[in-house]
């Protein structure tokens, strides 16, 4: 039998009971739509998260005090042996290092005139704006001062500036941060939120001043960015060596951004797969549907199967025709599913524009392919039954 004829015969029988075929296909279609939508949401979320995490750039290494940060709070706790500003300074001269940013974070009252705001205070080094690629929209960033005697300058986040100064010019004004006086020398452009953390409701002050303010001995983190002359693994090794030499012991931990992105990517992948697996339950039910309908079809058309065999169709041809029917219905389902998906995606992007939805053409083709495979699997048993029917009994069935 030539392929073209087979397709025509199969199409003919699908089209002949169009209502039944379409209903069956709709079942698969809903499943396909569910799986592709959930997968798209998952990978959209993944892209979004990775985007957020690489806000500070990707060529970055973080050093935290404490050997293991199992509970993610290592840097926040008091440690006997802190990371010092001198440690940060020592890392600056390593080959391949672009910028080093010592970080201390806390909260406190920020006052200007009679306006007051309690919010985040970030003690950072002068290189922070370059390292994290934060642009200054007004004035300039903190200057390079000697480590322990920085001038009392402050740079404001966008929200902080709005809250304290509204639309007036903050440059050169004196604010009080935790009771200490700082001169505003710059404003950072609007950055938005990062994982629920408002990056704009912040005041940036020199690290040594922040240590004083919080009465802290050590840094919470040292961020190191590096240029293309080195790799993150290489640099991490060098940083480790320098700090062990200075501390006599490995009492800190190093996280590289690509390591973190990888871990997070893995977690999100698992999440996406999990959600897609949930969605595929409906796909499975759809497959049961195809199998059920094909079973009844085989029973209904057993006389026809007998006739086909009598006029010389081989068992393999009968198997092929019924398998083809299951696949065609399932493919039809795939097309319905993708249409549903397009409609839902359009509606979603209209009503919830913020929803990260990544529709990848590859996934769409995969969805069609998957539907064909489902049809094949669901059709196997009924089609096998059809091919094994005794032609004499089949002809008599009426």
């Amino acid at each position, binding site marked *: 039998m030539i392929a073209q004829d087979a397709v025509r015969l199969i199409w003919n029988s699908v089209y002949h009971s169009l209502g039944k075929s379409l209903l069956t296909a709709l079942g698969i279609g809903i499943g396909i739509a569910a799986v592709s939508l959930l997968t798209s949401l998952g990978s959209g979320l993944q892209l979004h998260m990775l985007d957020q995490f690489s806000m500070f750039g990707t060529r970055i290494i973080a050093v935290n005090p404490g050997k293991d940060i199992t509970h993610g709070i290592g840097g926040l706790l008091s440690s006997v042996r802190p990371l010092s500003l001198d440690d940060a300074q020592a890392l600056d001269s390593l080959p391949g290092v672009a910028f080093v940013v010592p970080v201390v974070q806390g909260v406190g009252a920020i006052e200007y005139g009679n306006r007051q705001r309690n919010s985040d205070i970030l003690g950072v080094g002068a290189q922070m704006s370059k390292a994290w690629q934060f642009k200054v929209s007004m004035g300039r960033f903190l200057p390079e001062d000697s480590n322990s005697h920085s001038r009392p300058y402050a740079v404001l986040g966008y929200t902080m500036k709005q809250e304290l100064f509204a639309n007036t010019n903050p440059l050169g004004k004196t604010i009080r941060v935790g009771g200490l006086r700082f001169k505003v020398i710059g404003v950072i452009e609007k950055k938005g939120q990062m994982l629920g953390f408002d990056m704009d409701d912040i005041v940036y002050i020199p690290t040594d001043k922040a240590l004083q303010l919080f009465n802290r001995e050590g840094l919470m983190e040292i961020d190191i960015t590096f240029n293309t002359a080195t790799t993150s693994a290489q640099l991490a090794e060098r940083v480790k060596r320098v700090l062990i030499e200075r501390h006599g012991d490995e009492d800190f931990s190093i996280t590289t951004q690509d390591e973190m992105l990888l871990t997070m990517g893995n977690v999100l992948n698992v999440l996406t797969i999990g959600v897609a697996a949930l969605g595929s339950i409906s796909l499975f039910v759809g497959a049961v549907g195809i199998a059920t309908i094909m079973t009844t079809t085989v029973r209904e058309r057993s006389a026809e199967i007998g006739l086909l065999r*009598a*006029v*010389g169709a081989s068992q393999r041809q009968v198997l092929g025709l019924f398998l083809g029917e299951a696949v065609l219905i399932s493919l039809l389902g795939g097309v319905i599913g993708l249409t549903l998906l397009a409609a839902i995606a359009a509606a979603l992007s209209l009503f919830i524009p913020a929803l990260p939805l990544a529709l990848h053409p590859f996934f769409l083709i995969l969805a069609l392919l998957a539907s064909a495979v489902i049809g094949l699997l669901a059709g196997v048993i009924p089609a096998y039954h059809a091919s094994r029917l005794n032609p*004499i009994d089949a002809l008599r069935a009426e």
Partner: protein
Amino acid sequence: MIEPKAMIELQQLCRSFQIGDQCVHALDHIDLKIEGGEYLSVMGPSGSGKSTLLNMLGLLDMPSDGEYLLNQTATSQLSEEGRATLRREHIGFVFQSYHLIPRLTARENIELPLILAGIAPKQRKPLIDKVITRLALTDRAAHAPNQLSGGQRQRVAIGRAIVMKPQLLLADEPTGNLDSASGREVIELLEELNDEGITLLVVTHDQSIGDRATRELKMIDGRIASDRVTRTAS
């Protein structure tokens, strides 16, 4: 003179079914030779094995014992695929209830064996056209079976049976669902085909139809009770 080899030869052929705990011999040690071009009728009471014989000759059924030689080829050793090929190329079936596929037109129904044989559309066309003209179905070719009369339906079924130019045409009560006028038409058509050389075997209850054949088989209890040549072929 060399004796012509029989087209069909059944040797001690048996077919038994297990029904409950009883063994039924539908065909009981049958010996039969049929030459090419013969016109046979098979008659006998219900359950005598007529249809089983027809199915056996049509390679739809397998003997429990004995051998069936078609064109001197033993068929019992053939694979299912091989039997399907033989059916397709050498045997045509005509059934009492026509067995047309309702969603295909008359023309497409006739075309079916050619499609299954994998013949290209271009080569198919003249073959079908010829059959349609031969059966005077030209103005009915595009109709679906349920738009045709019984006689027309059976003509379509015959068209389907002969489109592959088989040697053997097996008809199981071909007039059973037809009024007498259409029935006569159909049987005359079959006889015309026989005149053109095709071997024709008709299973029937109807004595008047049975009498038309040149060789009449009577079956009782799975055996051929009588086998007589009523007249030599004209």
